[in-house]
């Protein structure tokens, strides 16, 4: 039973990734920049990972699970900004990445303090 569900999940995931890599998606970017084909498709793989994170935020049994997923989502958006820097050629996306990393770290610390059930003044 466990093996059967594993097999079904693996087939679905591999087929989605193959579909992303083979089928030409509509790109958000300029078609004349280099590596746009590979990076423009691989961007959708990171979005797939973000959707897996969103599943854990939606369906987390406890609050701690949701906080973990929010933290991981913040780190992954930094990677997304780095890929956008390469594929669009606009260097200010990495500034958004740095600011997002700082803000995500501080918000995670605040949320974990809140989870611990004590005040913020310690």
């Amino acid at each position, binding site marked *: 039973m*466990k*093996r059967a569900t*594993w*097999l079904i999940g693996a087939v679905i995931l591999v087929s989605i990734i193959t579909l992303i890599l083979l089928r030409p998606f509509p790109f958000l970017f300029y078609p004349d920049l280099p590596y746009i084909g590979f990076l423009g498709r691989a961007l959708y793989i990171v979005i797939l990972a973000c959707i897996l994170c969103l599943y854990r935020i939606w369906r987390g049994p406890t609050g701690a699970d949701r906080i973990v997923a929010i933290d991981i989502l913040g780190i992954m958006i930094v990677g997304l900004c780095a890929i956008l820097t390469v594929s669009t050629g606009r260097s200010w996306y990495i500034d958004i990445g740095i600011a997002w990393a700082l803000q995500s770290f501080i918000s995670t610390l605040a949320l974990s303090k809140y989870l611990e059930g004590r005040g913020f003044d310690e």
Partner: protein
Amino acid sequence: MKSKIVLFLVAYLVWALLNWAPDWQHLLVGIFIAWFVAFMTGDLFITRPHILKHPQRYWYFLVEYLPKFLWECLKANVDVAYRVLHPDLPINPGIVKVKTTLKADTALTFLANSITLTPGTLSVDIDRDNGVLYVHWIDVKEKDVEAATKIIVERFEKMLRKVFE
């Protein structure tokens, strides 16, 4: 005072790297901003500035600690990927207790970070007075305190003592 000067230099370096390629206007504004940061938060971060003067500590940090840390980090990722992709989820988790003899704050922080990023372990809490770390281990091999200490902590403890104490 010494720690404020060190923090000023670090903040100025980060400012200059964030405004790459530097020109004189950015560098002039950076002096004021780095001075302000050092003046406000100078004695919070660096409490023992005298250990920054020994050049062999930098040497040990760069040559011994950093390559070992990166190698263990890579091994940890392959290990976690194997456990996640295996159909039966081969995990055997638990929280064990390990002892450490490090005393300084910076060394304990780096030890906890190294434990978190190395294969199968995650530091949960530190009891600084007794020198005890509580570590969540995804595949418990030893329940005893001494044996777990030998496996988890001793990879890094010797190097970190050379670097930070």
